[in-house]
């Protein structure tokens, strides 16, 4: 394990001859050493050998050394009998004067609803049918085999938690499929209850290892206890790797969502209580050239509600089988030992002084630690997400809507390619093919978004199929699709770009002022992008370092100066993130006009959407970004956090109230009408 390398564990100066050589083969000469493993296409073998044989192969996965083999039913019994669940049953019985038997029965029902029924037969069925499907719709499914080997060792040593990024429903099918192929134990997966609505499919998923959790537990103590005990029992026994999505849901915008801590807390608890010696947390990055749900996401972001998961819906979606969705890259990151991360960061007191089966509210320290780990894992996911040429093309194209010359597109994309690599993006760019061909083929893959016509690339304005939902402008859909592809780039561009915007927004060059502005932006947009909590200065330094590296800026002890050749980069980066600044500013503007005392989120979402439509139609704004309900929600959360909007609970419903003074100030700051000032005062 020590031999394998990863960006997270190796400083840039570490000599890595092997990785360097590999990079040269793939990307040609590079300015910086990179430390990613080589990918292997796992479909390659499938295309040459029988799927049936593969599905029926002898499957003897490597397992956890402390495994006590048991059937899913036994796990259920263990959970119901556990001290944790029994304790809470007695507790509830005391409170409600209900007999324990009834509550026990309730617990049993809850458990039946959630529990998986992992069965090898179902896995084999999926192995067979997914092979067929994947071969048809994907060009390649690339996996870093070194990562698989690391995972294999980790699985033997300690309980393992798999933490993939979440961009598509395919994610968890894909992961189980990969693990089956490489003779690793298939995981048990935390899935939303939505799937249970699907006849047959829900049960099939159950048999392939999915267990189902309600989206909201509310204050249901019994549910929470049964659920967490269920997860912990499987983890402690080393029954199978436990898989769940830190982001909680599929990211419609392709930006990494801020982590949900509930499940992470649960899987870390056995270690906190020393019920296990250690736990491995494995960040996994799954990147799609083109997610199956791309148009669906755009619709959802425009406010069309997510279609309910149903079997008929799935059957209707058959048409996807006729399309080409490019390649998938699955990157297994270095397994993180929870014990090593926790080393020195945890006081052992709280868990030693109370019996371990009595639920304890995690202390503030503990909560901070869990959050720390969650962000660390998401940043690792981001680091290993593959970027493809189309992400760059979409980015360039969005700055030149609705059409642009192909030659210029190529030129600018190639320029952006260098920049992306400088900033450490994991870009897969076939260097043995001419740039215009690379771009051409990615345009072809996304011909549902752009037309290629007489040396011009044009945004599609009309749908080829009828049936665009009412009230929607087709163009908005295609733009939001482009935006999603561009967003994949933002995660690695955000730090240098915020420095660039700060340079533009700040009068003068004083480092201090620029940092103030950076800190302000980072604070405002911390729901949009993933920043390590509380480490603004480090982010700032990283941003400056990246910009210094390609000679965009010069940093002196007092000042930050833009070099002559740096102007292009700075304005490009500022333009890249301008939609966010502009979008938030417009939302502030809208809220100033909001007269309703105590509006609901729903009212706000409709209001801001209509407001934006008017602006777009009248040409007052070109902020297409603001079409996305994702931004509306993030902005509202940010405004609440910053105190510009107050959130109150009235009759089980949240209502919001605008703090006029604060919101005006915020709008002016975003519009660079007033200086940001010191970081402390920048807090509204």
């Amino acid at each position, binding site marked *: 394990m020590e031999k394998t390398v990863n960006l997270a564990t190796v400083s840039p100066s570490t000599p890595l001859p092997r990785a360097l050589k590999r990079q040269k083969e793939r990307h040609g000469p590079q300015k910086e050493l990179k430390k990613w493993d080589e990918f292997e296409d796992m479909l390659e073998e499938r295309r040459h050998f029988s799927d049936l044989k593969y599905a029926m192969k002898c499957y003897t996965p490597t397992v956890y050394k402390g495994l006590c083999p048991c059937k899913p039913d036994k796990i259920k019994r263990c959970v119901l009998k556990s001290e944790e669940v029994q304790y809470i049953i007695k507790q509830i019985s005391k409170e409600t004067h209900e007999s324990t038997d009834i509550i026990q029965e309730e617990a049993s029902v809850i458990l039946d609803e959630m529990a998986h029924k992992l069965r090898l037969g179902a896995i084999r069925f999926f192995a067979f049918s997914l092979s067929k499907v994947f071969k048809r719709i994907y060009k390649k499914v690339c996996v870093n085999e070194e990562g698989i080997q690391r995972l294999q060792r980790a699985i033997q040593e300690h309980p393992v938690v798999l933490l993939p990024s979440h961009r598509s429903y395919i994610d968890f099918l894909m992961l189980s499929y990969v693990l089956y192929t490489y003779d690793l134990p298939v995981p048990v997966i935390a899935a939303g209850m939505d799937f249970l609505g699907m006849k047959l499919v829900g049960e099939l998923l159950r048999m392939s290892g999915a267990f189902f959790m309600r989206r909201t537990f509310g204050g249901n103590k019994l549910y929470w206890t049964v659920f967490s005990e269920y997860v912990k029992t499987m983890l402690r026994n080393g029954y199978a790797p436990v898989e769940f999505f830190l982001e909680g849901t599929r990211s419609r915008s392709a930006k990494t969502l801020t982590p949900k801590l509930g499940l992470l807390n649960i899987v870390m608890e056995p270690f906190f209580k*020393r019920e296990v*010696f250690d736990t491995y947390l494995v960040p996994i990055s799954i990147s799609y050239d083109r997610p199956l749900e791309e148009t669906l996401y755009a619709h959802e972001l425009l406010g069309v509600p997510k279609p309910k998961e149903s079997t008929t819906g799935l059957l209707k979606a058959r048409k996807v089988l006729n399309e080409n969705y490019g390649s998938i890259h699955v990157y297994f990151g270095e397994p993180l030992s929870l014990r090593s991360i926790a080393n020195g960061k945890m006081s*052992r007191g709280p868990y*030693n002084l109370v019996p371990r089966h009595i639920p304890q509210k995690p202390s503030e320290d503990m909560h901070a630690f869990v959050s720390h780990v969650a962000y660390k894992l998401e940043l690792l996911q981001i680091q290993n997400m593959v970027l493809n040429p189309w992400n760059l093309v979409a980015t360039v194209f969005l700055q030149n809507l609705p059409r642009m010359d192909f030659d210029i597109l190529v030129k600018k994309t190639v320029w952006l390619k260098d920049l992306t690599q400088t900033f450490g993006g994991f870009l897969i760019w076939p260097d043995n093919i001419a740039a215009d061909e690379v771009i051409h083929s990615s345009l072809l893959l996304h011909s549902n978004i752009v037309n290629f016509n007489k040396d011009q690339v044009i945004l599609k304005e009309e749908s080829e199929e009828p049936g665009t939902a009412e009230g929607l402008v087709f163009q908005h859909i295609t733009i939001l699709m482009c935006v999603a592809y561009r967003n994949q780039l933002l995660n690695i561009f955000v730090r240098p770009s915020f420095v660039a915007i700060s340079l533009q927004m700040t009068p003068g060059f004083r480092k201090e002022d620029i940092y103030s502005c950076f800190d302000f932006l980072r604070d405002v947009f911390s729901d949009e992008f993933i920043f390590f909590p509380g480490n603004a200065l480090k982010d700032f330094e990283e941003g400056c370092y990246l910009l210094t590296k390609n000679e965009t800026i010069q940093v002196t002890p007092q000042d930050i100066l833009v070099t002559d050749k740096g102007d292009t980069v700075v304005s490009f980066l500022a333009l890249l993130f301008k939609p966010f600044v502009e979008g938030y500013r417009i939302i502030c503007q809208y809220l100033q006009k909001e007269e309703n005392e105590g509006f609901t989120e729903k009212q706000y979402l409709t209001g801001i959407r209509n407001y934006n439509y008017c602006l777009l139609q009248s040409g007052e704004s070109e902020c297409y970004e603001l079409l996305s309900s994702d931004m509306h929600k993030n902005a509202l959360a940010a405004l609440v956090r910053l105190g510009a909007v107050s959130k109150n609970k009235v009759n089980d419903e949240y209502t919001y109230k605008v703090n006029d003074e604060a919101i005006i100030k915020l709008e002016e700051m975003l519009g660079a009408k007033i200086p940001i000032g010191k970081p402390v005062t920048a807090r509204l």
Partner: protein
Amino acid sequence: MAEAAASAAADGAGCGSGSSLERERERVCAGRRLRVLSGHLQGRAPAAALVLNECRGRAPAAAPAAPPPAAPESSSIPKKRQELMKWNGWGYNDSKFIINKKGQIEFTGKRYPLSGMVLPTFREWLQNVLGLNLDQRTTSKASLNASDVPPSVVKEDFLDDLKETSISYSQEADDRVFRAHGHCLHEIYLLREGIFQRIPDIVLWPKCHDDVVKIVDLACKYNLCIIPFGGGTSVSSGLSCPVDEKRTIVSLDTSQMNRILWVDEHNLTAHVEAGITGQELERQLKESGYCTGHEPDSQEFSTVGGWVSTRASGMKKNIYGNIEDLVVHIKMVTPKGVIEKSCQVPRMSTGPDIHHFILGSEGTLGVVTEATIKIRPVPEYQKYGSVAFPNFERGVACLREIAKQRCAPASIRLMDNMQFQFGLALKPQVSSIFTSFLDGLKKFYITKFKGFDPNQLSVATLLFEGDREKVLQHEKQVYDIAAKFGGLAAGEDNGQRGYLLTYVIAYLRDLGLEHYVLGESFETSAPWDRVIDLCRNVKERIAKECKEKGVQFSPLSTCRVTQTYDAGACIYFYFAFNYRGISDPLTVFEETEAAAREEILANGGSLSHHHGGSQVESILQILKDHINVSYFFIVPMAVYKFYLAVI
């Protein structure tokens, strides 16, 4: 610890003033005890309660060279300990593991049941488990080189005063080195490879309580530092001399204070001097049909005073109790006088019990000179036993149940699989084919017939004591419980052998040290529900640390649950590793041990159940910080007011 004793000694000038004559013994109450105690904690001198006692042991006109008292001293410890015991290892000179001419491991001597026996499978086991190669030997000093030893620095006028008291003493290098250490691994390692930077300057052999009073007085007068020395079996660095100690260090060897002063058959107590060893105490009591039942693994050498000072625990505590349950009365000499209770009673309620401050104080408060301990008639019947469990977890569950039903035998110990194998490897050559055939049958029955995995199974050894009838009844009860947890009775022999090994195992470390293996034991206590997790995690942590530190062979890390209580258990760990190829083995060892202890704490265990530890000073500090004067205002009693006035 020694430092604290030293500092207590340092400001003792003018102690023990006239108030001792007031004899307020009837007024022994919480107030006074607190006063005395606080005086020790605060380092200030309240009106001390010095009790003058006659030296009952000494002949009125004892000359310095007077012959020892008539009492038989066949197995007591001589002043020149090195004549009987190893100067650089554990135990008696005549007993050690050697490699005989056939290349097999053999235990020499005549003292133990294992003595003179060959252990045919042990060599191979050591090779497999620790990678130990008996052909490779470390080179260590064969004998002590007196010129390496730090010189003895003692003031002449102190020596003059000392000679007047006729207490015997020595400034010989070998006597001083012998008392410069306990039996921590690093101490023994240093003895073999180098020498201590600081050792006692002089060794004193008081013969009775009064001698100790005189010595402490002299120490106060000349500003000396006293380290009491009993059996010398400390494993908590309690005997090591602080390197930067500038004062003369006096090692106060209690070995000559080894008499039973009286036995009270009415109340079943015995009053003994602090220097008597466990073995000697039991031997002498047995002559009149009694025993104390206190049997720590070190009982051949450790002394009553040592037990009191370290809060010792004996193997058979389930019947007889730990030392805190056994002592009825303690006499301790401090720089301010003598502390003792005014009566010999089973319990009193007059404020905090002064004994609880003395027990475990590790010599920091004073020198324990005499104690009254409970005695019991020697049990009519003893029976060993053993139970095999399919795995350690089931075994722990069974022990928990036994503790719950409060029916634990005199001793019950549960060995993990590794320790079970270890025990098997130490099996001596069997004399008859028949025995080995029987062993084979038993093994076949347990592993093949009952389906126990020999690499999983775990064995509990049992010792029952009492009336024959009750023992048999008790035995049945325990075996019935064991059966519920899948336990199978595995014979008396296995049980007995387990206990016979107890005293011999300590000799093994010296064999290891001769062949590049460092080993140590440590122990903890933990709540029942954490026992299994704690054992697994600590063993795994040791393996992980060793691996990270470049130890090539995976270490031996094994444990046993060795005592049961209502609320938890005591766990004993052995840890050893092969240090070939490591430049600084001692550091690797110490870091690994520290990591293991940290792991214990993180798992909700204690630093020590009975070995004692370096926490004494911090606990005294906590008392000092938290026992606040204002607290006493709550109780408006004259005594307390008096107390305040003194402060």
